């Protein structure tokens, strides 16, 4: 083994059809390092790592692990060589428990070769304890929130005792405290001589944890950095290949008008399993205002938005839209009233991935585009064209499946669908998760424009920088209740975090 190199990839190329996802990429990973892999969505990061983890078997180039050339024939093959990957798309079985998922396919056995449930639970408890995850190992994974599921996948990868761990956006659904906890675990792994490839869009995390960074653009390596000497701007410019404009756009506070949405003492009476339903929420969103929703995982942000959108359980309290009480029972009713919602997970909640960009974009307004029940081709083309133009959606054709778009552009399609309903209130749940820097800036800009045009925006996010950068005010939720309201002119990320965790913030 030469100077602690765990893995060397040389001249890796991989094409899909006529498109080169990777072009002649070289990459090394040393023992005890966290190597950040940066790039916009579609830059080839995932493809490269799927080659390393044995998921892609037909590629050109050489993979060298621990000094010997290898060609993996599948993920199991790679795992035997000590390489494990935590996928961005969670690969868990919803019906199985946390413990069963972690030991799937390699369950501990008793001497009689039957399943050793007790050992499995004990090992899982140890593992969860070591990683600081507070979960019952017997709970079905399907009842966990996205962030909790992400922690389970991380625990699963750790249980493989991998020498090489590939983490693809591992923190996208985690709260700040959980991220801290995970970084401690990564530090431990590093000291034990493991190498970690870390894919993320969050520059602050990379600064904290990585030592080297490699930037991919259009499938090729365009820059390598020593992270200590790298600035966020340098990295972002290497990723998008041009200078960045300011990430957050500000808008005029003076334009704030009368309240569009007022929520008073909202309480959901019947809990859904594994959910934190609103248990006393009051807030106001005014015309032209962007209000943030902060809170840890399980604080009830998503559930609040779902309830307001008519996609939750029945509730008590009052919700006023333009001063009139409303009670939407279905998303359809909410949309008719002028409330729109961009859900948390665009793949499972937002899009029919096989269907065309066109069909996905106009879905919410096909009724309005119809004459005698038949959709007017002209009007739907015009609607999609408007969205593609205004949101700068990058695509080959509106007829191609939405799955062929990058994450950021997929998100724009979900966004555009809601904009076409001309809402007066826009509810957003983690709208920039898994979206690259360029698209992120565009989304922020769009939110600013919407607010300026008089829309009231309620934005739930785990990214504190985003809340502080984009919102006028931030409402903090804890345990399904509103616990604080902080104007971003006076409060920063630290205050938000403190309030989310339950400290009293003097203002």
């Amino acid at each position, binding site marked *: 083994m030469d100077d602690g190199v765990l893995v060397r990839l040389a001249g890796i190329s991989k094409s899909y059809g006529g498109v080169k996802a990777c072009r002649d990429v070289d990459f090394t990973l040393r023992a005890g390092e966290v190597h950040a892999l940066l790039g916009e969505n579609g830059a080839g990061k995932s493809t490269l790592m799927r080659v390393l983890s044995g998921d892609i078997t037909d590629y050109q180039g050489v993979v060298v692990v621990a000094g010997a050339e290898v060609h993996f024939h599948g993920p199991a093959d790679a795992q035997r060589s000590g390489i494990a990957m935590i996928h961005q798309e969670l690969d868990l079985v919803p019906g199985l428990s946390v413990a069963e998922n972690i030991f799937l396919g390699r369950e501990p056995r008793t001497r009689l070769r039957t399943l050793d449930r007790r050992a499995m639970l004990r090992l899982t408890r140890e593992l969860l304890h070591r990683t600081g995850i507070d979960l019952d190992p017997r709970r079905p994974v399907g009842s966990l929130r996205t962030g909790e599921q992400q922690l389970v996948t991380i625990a699963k990868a750790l249980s493989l005792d991998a020498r090489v761990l590939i983490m693809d956006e591992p923190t996208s659904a985690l709260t700040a405290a959980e991220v801290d906890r995970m970084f401690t675990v990564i530090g431990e792994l590093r000291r034990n001589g493991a190498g970690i490839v870390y894919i993320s869009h969050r520059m602050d995390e990379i600064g904290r944890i990585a030592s080297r960074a490699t930037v991919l653009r259009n499938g090729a390596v365009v820059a390598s950095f020593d992270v200590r000497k790298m600035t966020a701007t340098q990295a972002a410019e290497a990723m998008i290949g041009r200078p960045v404009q300011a990430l957050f756009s500000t808008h005029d506070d003076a334009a704030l008008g009368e309240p569009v949405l007022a929520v008073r003492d909202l309480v959901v009476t019947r809990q859904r399993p594994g959910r934190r339903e609103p248990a006393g929420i009051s807030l106001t969103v005014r015309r032209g205002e962007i209000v943030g929703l902060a809170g840890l995982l399980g604080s009830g942000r998503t559930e609040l938005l779902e309830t307001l959108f008519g996609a939750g359980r029945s509730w008590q309290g009052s919700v006023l839209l333009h001063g009139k009480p409303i009670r939407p029972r279905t998303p359809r009713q909410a949309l008719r009233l002028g409330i729109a919602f961009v859900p948390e997970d665009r793949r499972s909640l937002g899009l029919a991935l096989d269907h065309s960009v066109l069909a996905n974009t106009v*879905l*919410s307004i096909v009724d309005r585009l*119809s004459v005698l029940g038949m959709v007017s081709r002209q009007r739907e083309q015009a609607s999609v064209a408007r969205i593609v133009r205004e949101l700068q959606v990058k695509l080959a054709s509106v007829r191609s499946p939405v799955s062929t778009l990058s994450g950021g552009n997929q998100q724009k399609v979900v966004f555009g669908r809601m904009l076409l309903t001309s809402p007066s209130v826009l509810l957003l749940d983690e709208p920039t998760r898994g979206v690259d820097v360029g698209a992120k800036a565009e989304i922020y800009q769009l939110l600013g424009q919407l607010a300026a045009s008089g829309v009231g925006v309620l934005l739930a996010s785990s990214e504190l920088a985003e809340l502080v950068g984009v919102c006028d005010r931030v409402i903090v939720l804890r345990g399904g209740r509103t616990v604080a309201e902080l104007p971003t002119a006076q409060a920063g990320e630290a205050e938000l975090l403190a309030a989310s965790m339950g400290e009293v913030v003097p203002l």
Partner: protein
Amino acid sequence: MTTDFVATRPSAASVVFRFQSLFGLVAVFIAAVVFSPSRDGELLFLSSGNLFNVVRAMSEIGIIAVGMTFVILIGGIDLSVGAVLGLAAVGSAVLLVENDFSLVPAVLLVLLVGLVFGLLQGIATTLFKIQAFIVTLAGLQIARGLARIWSGGQGVAIAYGSDPGEAPVAFSLLGERTFNGLVPIPALIFIVVAALAILFLRGSAFSRHVYAIGGNEQAARLSGVPVTRVKVIVFGISGFLAALAGIIHAGQLNQGSPNDGSTYELDAIAAVVVGGTSLSGGRGSVVGTVAGALLLGVLNNILALNSVDTNVQLLIKGLVIVVAAGLQGLRPS
């Protein structure tokens, strides 16, 4: 990634896959011509009498399969259609012969029974959140039971005439008569049903909702699609079309028997699958289903013309379905 990510011109392979069932139909048709036995120098398969038989035989399955396409597009399944066909056949016979209904009220009432039966199944699957497979499996038993009760447990023969106990002569139009001496009436009904369904699925707002539900039900709901209503209506369409097929069945056989249409649901599903519609929902078309139904009809016919052993016929049909489904799996997504 830039715009060259998606090839803008479809490759030859993707065209073949897209129109898989049409290519399959052409292939089977050519095979039928090649393997057709001949008499007096004339190919039996291509004789007009035989081609009539092909379309008439497939009309009932074809009509059911159109309804089944809707159900499968929303990610559901309807196992009750064969039994509803039986119920409708019995209903037509009993109403016309024993209850002395005149033609139009009898037909309308039977269609209404099918429609309501389908709607109730839709309500059961959406409101009580029971899987369509289970609901329609129960529906199959219930419809079969109702047919037995309605008919007294045996076939009801239809005699034509104007006396009490005889059905209006017009009903026999569904039997042997042809339109303009060209197209059998059942086939004509099938063509009209298929054409309406194709037009409807191409351009209506309702069809967008159908596809969206099959593509991603959660996303459809959050996009304001009235998921429950659409699903209930789709099951209603399937029940209605099964009843229509049942009326034709009674007309063709001049009787209604409670066992009519048994396992027709499987033939209909086969036609939909061979037609390239995905059983997981959200992808497919009525054009494909029509081609699939024709393909299976031609296959049946040519096997029968060559007096292939019925057991071997089953075997060959099974293989064709597996191959068609296998091709779907290979389809580039």
